[in-house]
């Protein structure tokens, strides 16, 4: 009897301790983002936004009572580092979810690794669209959201002749394809299309070609620090044409880095930028600047990274667990939304992409921003329409308009 009593007393003491130890087991969130290297300019706001969201959630008790632990590896804008640290996260740290990736190349480098390990992965950046992968959830904006709003508006305001200059790789080429499609659907003509290799930063001939073609406006889909030299150079040559873009301003805040009037008359359709003046946005900015007073810019991707953490939280709470399969099922069940800087946005269960509020940002002569129009609740409709339905059928691919899912 004594032995049993002693054991019972021992259990009575150790069990609560053991249970409290289990209760504070953190939710591990792996982050693969470039804090240094070529992409750091656009990525550092994302890292800070993720950190902000995590701190806020932890202050309110965490996810299901567990604090979030951030494990961030600086991938140095290097695809091989993405691969190395994705492996390290999965094999050593074993996080419940991995966030990360800026360039599409880095995402594509780790997607096979995520798929092999069936690891839940959030890509929080705008890109060329088309990833239909059961393990991947995208909070960034996609071309149909940004171009279907922007291009018809510009064509109505300025005219139907469009010249596109795009970075000569997947994102630029696919975005240019979208522009071409929408221009044609709205009765316009392409005055010209130019694809610029990523390593180019001298645009003399391009500017001349544009002048020769005499378009009504120019769609600029330029990526990277090198290509952004275009804006200063076209202003110096006094090209003086309105410009449209899905990617400028919102990601690398060119309007803050170039002296006016280099980006004058640029129209962009991000799903959020710092200049948005709404209660949700101002509150977000206040909290962001309180934690990071020296942040150069609170960009579109910062808002997406912030929303992503809350989306994950909502899904985990609906699933009542952080088990990756359960969270995925919760997200595919629909109705997972968050109320962030851009207002209410939801995760589409079929395509694993997010709906967005699209703001039309017009850069003025002095590089301040006005918002002539706002579109609410724009859905990422293309993948679902093309045949990607991850709630019903698993898939692990990336599709493009010219390479849609096989029906």
């Amino acid at each position: 009897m004594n032995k049993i009593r002693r054991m019972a007393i021992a259990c009575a003491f150790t069990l609560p301790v053991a249970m409290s130890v289990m209760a504070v087991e953190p939710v591990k969130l792996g982050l693969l983002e470039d804090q240094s290297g070529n992409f750091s300019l656009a990525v550092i706001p994302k890292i800070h936004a993720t950190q902000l969201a995590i701190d806020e959630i932890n202050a309110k008790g965490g996810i299901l009572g567990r604090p979030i632990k951030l494990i961030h590896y600086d991938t140095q804008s290097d695809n091989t580092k993405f691969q190395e640290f994705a492996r390290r996260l999965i094999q050593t740290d074993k996080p419940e979810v991995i966030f990360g990736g800026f360039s599409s190349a880095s995402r594509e480098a780790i997607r096979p690794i995520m798929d092999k390990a069936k690891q839940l992965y959030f890509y929080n950046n705008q890109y060329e669209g088309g990833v239909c992968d059961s393990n991947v959830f995208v909070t960034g904006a996609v071309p149909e959201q940004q171009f279907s709003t922007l291009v018809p508006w510009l064509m109505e305001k300025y005219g139907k002749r469009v010249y596109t200059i795009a970075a000569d790789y997947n994102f630029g080429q696919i975005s240019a394809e979208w522009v071409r499609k929408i221009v044609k659907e709205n009765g316009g003509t392409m005055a010209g299309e130019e694809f610029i290799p990523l390593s180019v930063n001298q645009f003399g001939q391009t500017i001349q070609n544009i002048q020769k073609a005499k378009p009504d406006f120019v769609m600029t889909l330029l990526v990277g620090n090198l290509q952004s030299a275009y804006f200063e150079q076209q202003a110096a040559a006094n090209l003086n044409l309105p410009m449209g873009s899905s990617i400028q301003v919102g990601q690398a805040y060119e309007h803050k880095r170039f002296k006016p009037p280099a980006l004058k008359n640029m129209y962009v359709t991000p799903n959020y930028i710092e200049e948005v003046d709404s209660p949700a946005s101002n509150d977000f900015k206040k909290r962001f600047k309180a934690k990071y007073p020296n942040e150069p810019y609170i960009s579109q991707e910062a808002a997406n990274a912030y929303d992503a953490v809350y989306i994950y939280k909502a899904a985990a709470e609906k699933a009542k667990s952080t088990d990756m399969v359960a969270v995925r099922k919760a997200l595919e069940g629909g109705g997972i939304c968050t109320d962030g800087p851009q207002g209410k946005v939801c995760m589409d269960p079929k395509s694993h992409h997010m709906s967005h509020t699209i703001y039309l940002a017009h850069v003025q002569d002095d590089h301040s921003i006005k918002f002539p129009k706002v579109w609410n609740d724009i859905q990422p409709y293309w993948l679902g329409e093309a045949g990607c339905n991850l709630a019903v059928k698993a898939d692990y691919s990336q599709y493009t308009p010219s390479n849609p899912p096989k029906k």
Partner: protein
Amino acid sequence: MDCPGATFSKGLAMTLLTTVYSFLYQFGDSFAYLTLSALGLAVIFGMMGVINLAHGEFVMCGAYVTILTAKAGVPLPLAMLTGALAAACVGAILEYLVVRHLYNRLFDSIVATWAVSLITQQAMLIFAGPSIEGLSTPFNSFELGDYSFSTYRALLPFFAIAVLAGLYLLFFRTNYGVYARATIQNAQMAKCLGLRTPRIYSMTFALGAGLAGLAGALYAPTITAVPTMGSSFIVPAFVTVVTGGANVLLGVLPAAGFLGLIQSGMTAAFGQLAGQIGLLITVIFVIRLLPMGMGHLFNRR
């Protein structure tokens, strides 16, 4: 009232003038970029043999200092000179600390300068942030026919030639020039004749760094100011210097001229991708046909 024939031929002359000038403008643009990128490296690599992978960082230094001093109120030409001088100082320091020890093992300068490049880029990112606000391109634009051109960029090729001419004068008409050429051709003999070779190496390296900084200063109002901005100057610099061959002045001019011609021609005819690839393929062919570089063609022995 003009008769129709006169208007027509005037229009034709205008179109011809515009086409010819626009091609010259693009060529000059390409030529200036290649020449200015290459000059600093031509001195450091072409003359001294140091494979300087930190060349881009000298360019960045010149650009950043130019921008910061111009923003502080200094007039732009003076700010550019300051930028070049700052790069020269940094070059002198680097030579004293690192490069000096590597003259007898030049291949190791690859690792050393690569390491310096890594340190500099990352340190700039940490301390100065991912970017700084840039400058506007000075002067305005002018129109010719259907096109408008940036005046500043139209003048850049002339700056490039002016710098080349200045270098020629420096190396062939000054005492320093004679000492430098002697030291580089035969350091032992130069020492025997009483020249202070360490001082000369130091000054020549600083000169090369200063020229790279000048390129950064001149291009600062036209490109983005980020810590990695120098990387776009490295490949044009190396290919121009090597295509030109060992002789700095005799080589860089024809090399930049020929490569610039091909690049601007290909870009005008087939687009930017063709221009980039065309440049690289031309380099391969020129080196194949002239294994000692283009300068060797003009070398009188």
